[in-house]
């Protein structure tokens, strides 16, 4: 029978070097709503604004769909910072998704902080479809902030 290869292949992923996900080159994951922030980010693109390339955007229909548990999963998978962004209060495409989620985020954020997660690593913002510049500013500031944090993971999600 064919046994599995036990030796480890060092050269697994040719692109890994380009974004290591380390503290100095952190991986940021942004959960954004389809209608406001995703469009805002697109606007930044059509306006040819430049911003940090550390962020990876995951698109969801609405802030109301962005489960706080996604934040946990993102940290588990090595994100150094997580951004949640959607329509401004009152502008929700689905009327009230962002209001419902805001309650959850406020509570969940408290819980994270209490359990020793560095809240500098979790960011929430309201970015409208017209706020390409705000998107750029939020991403750049967040990236800079994460980079400035001490080079050790103070969260309870990653194995030490």
């Amino acid at each position, binding site marked *: 029978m064919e046994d599995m290869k036990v030796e480890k292949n060092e050269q697994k992923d040719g*692109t890994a070097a380009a974004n290591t996900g380390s503290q100095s080159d952190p991986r940021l994951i942004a959960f954004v709503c389809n209608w406001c922030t995703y469009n805002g980010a697109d606007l930044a693109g059509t306006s040819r604004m430049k911003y940090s390339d550390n962020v*990876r955007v995951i698109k969801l229909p609405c802030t109301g769909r962005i489960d706080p548990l996604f934040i946990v999963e993102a940290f588990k998978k090595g994100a150094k910072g997580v951004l949640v962004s959607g329509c401004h209060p009152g502008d929700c495409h689905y009327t009230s998704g962002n209001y419902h989620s805001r309650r959850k985020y406020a509570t969940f954020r408290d819980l994270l902080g209490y359990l020793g997660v560095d809240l500098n690593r979790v960011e929430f913002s309201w970015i409208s479809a017209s706020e390409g510049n705000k998107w750029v500013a939020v991403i750049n500031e967040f990236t800079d902030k994460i980079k400035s944090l001490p080079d050790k993971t103070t969260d309870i999600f990653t194995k030490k």
Partner: protein
Amino acid sequence: MSRIGVFVCWCGSNIASTVDVEKVREEAAKIPGVVSAVDYKYMCSDPGQNSLRNVIKEKNLTGVVLAACSPHMHENTFRKAAVKEGLNPYFVEIANIREQVSWVHEDKERATAKAVDLMKMMVEKVKRDKPIEDVRVPLNKKALVIGGGISGIQAALDIANGGVEVILVEKEPSIGGRMIQLDETFPTLDCSSCIMTPKMVEVNQHPNIKLYTYSEIEDVSGYIGNFKVKIKKKARSVVEKDCTGCGECWNACPMHKNVKSEFNINLSERTAIYVPFPQAVPLVPVLDRSVCLHFKKGGKCQKCFDACGPKCIDFSMQDEIIEETVGAIVAATGYDLMETSMYGEYGYGKYKDVVSGLQFERLLSASGPTEGVIKRPSDGKTPQTIVFVQCVGSRDPEKGVPYCSKVCCMYTAKHAKLFAHKVHGSQSYVFYIDIRATSKGYEEFVRGTMEQDGAVYLRGRVSKIYEDNGKLIVKGADTLSGNQVEIAADMVVLATGVIPKKGSDKLAQMLGISYDKYGFLTESHPKLRPAESSTAGIFLAGMAQGPRDIPESVVSGSAAASKILGLFSKSEYEVEGTISSVNEATCVACFYCQRVCAYNAISRKEIKDRNGNVVKVVANVNPGLCTGCGACVNACFSKSIDVKGFMDDQIYAEIKSLAV
């Protein structure tokens, strides 16, 4: 099995100059489940789309990932292309490597790495895509309009003229609403009844309109295309089809001095059997059983019965419940004027000559209690000096409401103008905060009242009104001159603010639509969907949504009508298939999903065993109402509800693919 095709677009040099598209393609080819990876100059071009279609066909793809421009640009383009090859459109996912990579980053290696990541995310997502079928809801092409005011009438007529059957339900004995109570209308001063009555008659005669007056909505269930409505037709005690409206009955009624007329806002009296006003539609009286001697005194009085030629008085008539199935609903429930009891200092209710704006309309009206001659209620004398007080209740967060009632500035100017026209040499004073006269001809109209008709406008609030020697002394501030003013007036007209019709909140709950903290019905989107409620198939019109004037009310009625005609122009109502669905095996019926759903799309469902016993209650998603926002998914603790197209498993796979 996953057979994914990855298509990397160069977008000319738009992507290719910053992202190494070949590298992205090579990385794609390495992913398990990817059976084809290609790059192409312009994927959205015809040749590009054709190559996409060819690969789908040749490689028998189960999913497609395009690494290209924003999904908001070409998602539909590519989905359509995929559908042509028999692939479910939702099996096409886009990695946005233009707007969110090549255009915003400069370092080619890093931009490429990001593009690869985004592509991988979408590959993992598309692997977990489930076929999604768009939802088709059959439509009962019949509309219900609630409220027979001008906006409801407009909506009903427009819909009916579009060839669709309409049921118009009005709570009062006659349609006409508030507008028929008005005298002349600003800024053109055409007579309200003159323009309103023809429309009312048209409603009554329209073959496509079924009119229920003196009727209320008892219950609404169902959803877009298929609302089940129960209408309570209150016992009128008059057989409508036989009545000729001759008036013998009310002339015979002995109660002619005892009942305050609602239509004239207590400024006149009516009989127990009555029509609210002479031009009422339908011109069929209603017997008010709460005051009728027949009912109060054990059946002795039957003067109206005796007087009636066609013998259409029926004392034994019962309330009747009529059930109708409609495909769409317009809520045009209108407004009330605010109570002014909190302004005790103005003496409304205490001094007969302090009247509300609407009462003054009746005093001005030729069909009103004074037949259009302005007489003050206390002694019937014609007033020479009238003080108009604006913003009574409006823009007063302390005592009233913070919002502007919008129409008061204009109707006060109209009142002052008509007063000047009707009583020569008279003088009016208007206390105002700001003048809001923003529509066509409005500013000129107000100017005219001031300049041609000599109304004195005083910027400031009235602090007190009291009676002294047959005059009403109005004390107030003129903030422009900084003086306290005191005016001895014969009458005071309070421009009371506008509030939603009493009971409209109850109706909104019945309809499952939202309303704001004042009770005004809320639009689905304040700018882009102003005629729609948050619930699919239910539309809004008129003052029920908030203060507006007649033209705006008419426009909103027409808007609702056009929405319904548009909806009914198709044989079925189509909804995107990206909606929520419940895992009934694990749902525990806590109904947090229902609480957070802005669209009333979640209902209770009983699961029964073979003997019909309820074994379990679970949440159920109404596909016609669900918009796929996913708020319910977030609310569900046991993760027993998920939204197609953005399933938890897919989001987690995306995150997983980003692991560093």
